[in-house]
């Protein structure tokens, strides 16, 4: 009996999980499906889910009309650049806060997190003026720095929690074995924290890739990433849903594929230390 009950319960839980999963995935699925419809079918009422004339026309038009490669390249540069730059600052910061905490370490960490509570638009104007006056507007370097700063509190927090899991004894053993601070971080801390660093890196790439506020406001052409590419298809004269969907699909595809392949690492990383 007990076994049957637990099996029934398992089935119910599985169905609920799938339902929630589909609900979350539905907008993405809808976008992908719409990208294969004609503009007329895209706005048809009632809409058809699968039974329509599948066409690649939208992709052809989008490909002709805009330079997808350039937007993609910009996205890669900004996501990877801001992540590497961020880790270079976050690893030593998290190290010092995890292993050499001072009296105010907790306060500093809360303060860092509090910067994420402010709406980004609140600092848009000063940053915009700064960017314009320094001539950095619409450059990679500006966006890399801004995206890095936006995500820095989160990656420092993530790394901090991973580092906290590493026994201090092992780092002290390295010190006794004659390791300098640099060797200690390179040969002992980093390899041990690698799963954590990898998932932090993945999450940061995803966050930077999807970031739309700063990338839209601080770029025009040269440094514009895929978010700007999508935005260029939402025109005020009337929306071309199918083309917008094709552009969106092309923009999210790379990160979706990356996320798919690294999901194991991501889940492990995000739940690391939660069960102990």
């Amino acid at each position, binding site marked *: 009996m007990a076994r049957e009950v637990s099996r029934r319960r398992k089935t119910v839980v599985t169905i609920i999980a799938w339902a929630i999963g589909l609900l979350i995935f539905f907008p993405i699925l809808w976008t992908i499906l719409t990208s294969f419809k004609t503009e007329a079918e895209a706005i048809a009422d009632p809409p058809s889910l699968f039974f329509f004339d599948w066409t690649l026309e939208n992709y052809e038009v989008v490909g002709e009309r805009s330079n997808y490669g350039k937007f993609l390249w910009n996205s890669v540069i900004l996501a990877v650049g801001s992540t590497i730059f961020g880790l270079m600052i976050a690893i030593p910061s998290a190290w010092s806060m995890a292993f050499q905490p001072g009296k105010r370490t907790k306060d500093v960490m809360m303060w860092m997190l509090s910067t994420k509570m402010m709406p980004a638009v609140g600092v848009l104007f000063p940053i915009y003026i700064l960017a314009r006056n320094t001539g950095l507007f619409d450059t990679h370097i500006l966006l890399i720095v801004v995206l890095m700063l936006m995500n820095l509190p989160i990656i420092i927090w993530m790394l901090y929690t991973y580092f906290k899991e590493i*026994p201090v*004894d*092992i780092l002290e*053993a*390295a*010190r*006794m074995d004659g390791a300098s601070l640099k060797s200690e971080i390179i*040969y002992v801390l980093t*390899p*041990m924290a690698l799963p954590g660093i990898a998932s932090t890196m993945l999450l940061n790439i995803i966050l930077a890739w999807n970031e739309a506020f700063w990338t839209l406001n601080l770029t025009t052409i040269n440094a514009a990433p895929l978010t700007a590419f999508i935005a260029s298809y939402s025109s005020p004269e009337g929306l071309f849903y199918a083309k917008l969907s094709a552009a969106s699909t092309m923009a999210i595809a790379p990160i979706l594929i990356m996320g798919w392949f690294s999901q194991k690492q991501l889940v492990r990383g995000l739940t690391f230390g939660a069960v102990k």
Partner: protein
Amino acid sequence: MGRITLKDVTKSFGETQVIPPLNLEINDGEFVVFVGPSGCGKSTLLRLIAGLEDVTSGSININDMDATNIPPAKRGLAMVFQSYALYPHMSVRKNIGFPLKMAGIEGAQATKKIDEAAKVLNLTDYLDRKPGQLSGGQRQRVAIGRAIVREPDAFLFDEPLSNLDAALRVNMRLEISELHHQLKTTMIYVTHDQVEAMTMADKIVVLRAGNIEQVGSPIELYKNPQNLFVAGFIGSPKMNFINGTSALEYDAHTIGVRPEHLRASKSEGVWKGVVGVSEHLGSDTFLRVNVDGIEDGLVVRAEGDVELYHGDTVYLSPENDSRIYKFDRNGQAI
């Protein structure tokens, strides 16, 4: 060379002073054991010597050089941790070789040293394994191997055996003692286990609340404890303490008699009591005797098997008066 001198060393964590001014000299080649109850500051003292903690005041000299402000990596000391602290991502070979790599020794010379250390510690067959694939005892050996390849001026051991089971602990104790005979390097060993201290040390430093209570060879401490604390801490089972009229007869506030210096008789003796617990080990018999007027009762060790059991009446007397320790009101030996 491994001569370590501590001069007026103190350590405070915030407002609390854990080590009051302390002086200690450790000679080259000595096996010194810091012993005391948990929280007595023995591990902190070791960490101060290692450089893993900064001294609040005073100085630490290693081989007559002021090492107070030298980082741990440059003090020429090696440490074995209670938790082993092996690098989990490296093989045994790489773990043992890590200090060599840090010292810039690589290639054939490093391989030779690692192989030698592995041979001494019976680890040759395990060199390619990761620490996770080893037993507790093997991990401890790897930790020791990592310490010996450096050929340090002194070894520091921080309760290295407390994570091992009883049988293995005895084995490893012997192995460490043997290693000391072989290497003749200074060793400083921290433990709360007085048996480890008695069996391994050339010199024991008994600590309480950061203070050195007494320094001496195991037998000196056993024969001439300077105060009640040392008297009670060294020796197993611990010394019996008696206050009141029995003590006054010896012109003392408290007298102490070791369990092995008491005689049990069924017919006559100084103190009359009833056996509470009797432990028959074959080689020895331990009796816990409840005696009127002695709060904690008395413990007796008798050689061989003695036919006394729970509830039996027994008379106890000191073997002879020279085996009685006398203490004044402040707990100091008279």
